[in-house]
């Protein structure tokens, strides 16, 4: 699992096989199978409680699954296979795997005591062990890419929600991840700030990174995603190109959901 800068721009294949997850008696994921090709953009839609976020969090092992497995470019995430057994990896090894997988949170979770550039440079410095000058150069380039070159010394509190989320995206990209996961990246934003964040995500879609976006922005999903997955009750109800799932849904549940969010 090399993460050299040369091949990092290329996305990785994500395979999700028979994934189950329950919290106590509450089955959140009930057998998810999905293959996301390298460089694809997948939008996951579904009513609240359908397991969207849990699935996303399982991809980088923030959430342990009860059954099944997830792999990125053939490497199991969180486990090592010995014969027919999956042994959970040590925390250290899992942390190393996560470097290939960027995660953008609904509530940004920027580090409030660090400036924008310190937030972005942190992972290159300490997870990849890059020299300081190089980490800051990368961070500066990424802040420029999300349109915040002039905000590098600002603390998160001094930034608007949209700006904070753009810093968070730059932070997730700073380690050249092969996969980037977005957990409702615009749900915590004021309506007028949604556009600037979606613009940044849209620009990434062309860069060849594999992206998975949990979202309620149907228009965005239609425009940017090449696959739309509709989740309900912990199962995939339907998936396919946005034209199919969004315009000609086969299931009544999907139709009902879309009718509600499109109003």
């Amino acid at each position, binding site marked *: 699992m090399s993460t050299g800068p040369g091949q990092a721009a290329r996305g990785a294949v994500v395979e999700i096989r028979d994934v189950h997850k329950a919290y106590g008696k509450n089955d959140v994921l009930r057998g998810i199978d999905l293959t996301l090709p390298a460089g694809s953009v997948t939008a996951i839609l579904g009513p609240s409680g359908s397991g969207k976020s849990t699935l996303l969090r399982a991809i*980088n092992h*923030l959430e342990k699954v009860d059954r099944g497995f997830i792999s990125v470019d053939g490497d199991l995430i969180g486990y090592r296979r010995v014969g027919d057994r999956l042994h959970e990896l040590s*925390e*250290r090894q899992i*942390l*190393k*795997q*996560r*470097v290939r*997988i960027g*995660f953008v*949170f609904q*509530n940004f*979770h*920027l*580090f*409030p*005591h*660090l*400036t924008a550039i310190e937030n972005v440079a*942190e*992972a290159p410095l*300490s*997870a990849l062990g890059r020299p300081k000058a190089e980490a800051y150069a990368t961070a500066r380039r990424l802040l420029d890419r999300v349109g915040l070159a002039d905000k590098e010394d600002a*603390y*998160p*509190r*001094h930034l608007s929600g949209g700006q904070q989320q753009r810093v968070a995206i730059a*932070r*997730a990209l700073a*380690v050249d991840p092969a996969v980037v996961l977005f957990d409702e990246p615009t749900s915590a934003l004021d309506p007028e700030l949604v556009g600037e964040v979606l613009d940044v995500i849209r620009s990434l879609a062309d860069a060849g990174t594999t992206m998975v976006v949990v979202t309620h922005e149907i228009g965005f999903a239609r425009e940017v995603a090449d696959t739309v997955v509709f989740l309900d009750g912990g199962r995939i109800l339907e998936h396919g190109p946005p034209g199919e799932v969004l315009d000609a849904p086969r299931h009544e549940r999907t139709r009902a959901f879309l009718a509600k969010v499109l109003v």
Partner: protein
Amino acid sequence: MSAPEQAWALPSPLAEAPPFDTAPSLPAAAEAPERLVVVPARHPWRWVAGAAVLVLLAQFVHGLATNPGWEWQTFAGYFFEKSIMDALLITLELTFAGAVLGFAGGVVLAALRLAHNPVLKAVSWGYVWVFRSVPLLVQLLFWANLGYLYRTLQVGVPFGPGFHEFQTLHLVSSLGAALLGLSLHEAAYAAEIVRAGMLSVDAGQREAAAALGLPRGRQFRRILLPQAMRAILPSAANELINLLKSTSVVYVLAIGELFYQVQVVYGRTGRVVPLLMVATVWYAILTALLSLVQHRVEKRFGRGATR
């Protein structure tokens, strides 16, 4: 102030209101807002309360200056006296060492309490319970009498053979007993302060650090601890000041710290009040210094928290 006059002159639906009514200002607001002057509310009772307190304070200061019982001459004579200075140094040493050892122990105890291992958790809880239950004074007397409980102490295999034996009396001097007691006592309180600080950090911060793949130690030092410090510092400073004064309790072990020393002096001279004032003023000065340091350190850890 021509605004009211202007208002009277203006034709208004409220013009026929009774002459003492305030209504005329209403049309003024509607029709000539730029003429209005904002008058802040008056607070006469603030002045009354302030004056009353100042009178009481003046009375107290007057008493300090005129009552011969304070014996300021004696106070001045002993304030920088050699034996007092030496005692002050011991108080500072006890405070410093007690704080360092206590907080080191507190960090360990907090880590144990937050660990997943139920045995470690329970032990940490038990420690805090015991050392918060036993009054410092009582605890100190126990340590001073350790030699009575265990004449010798051994290093070796648990329940097995020992390699080296110490005479308890030689191992634990009275200063050692004092430091041990203060540190163990302090560790129990520090543990709770540190634990509260760690819990005050939003769970999303740990998650974000983990999602970025930051190494565990780095997550703690760079991300969690600096944020926990904001919650830890005010309580820690409070505890440190408390410790400074708690050192006076070790006088029972006949250690020449500040309070013990002033007792020695007034036992000899009979000048109780001025010598108690010597100790009091020194404690107050040290507390002021610690508060100053607290303010500086809090400011440093407040980065990014204020606009």
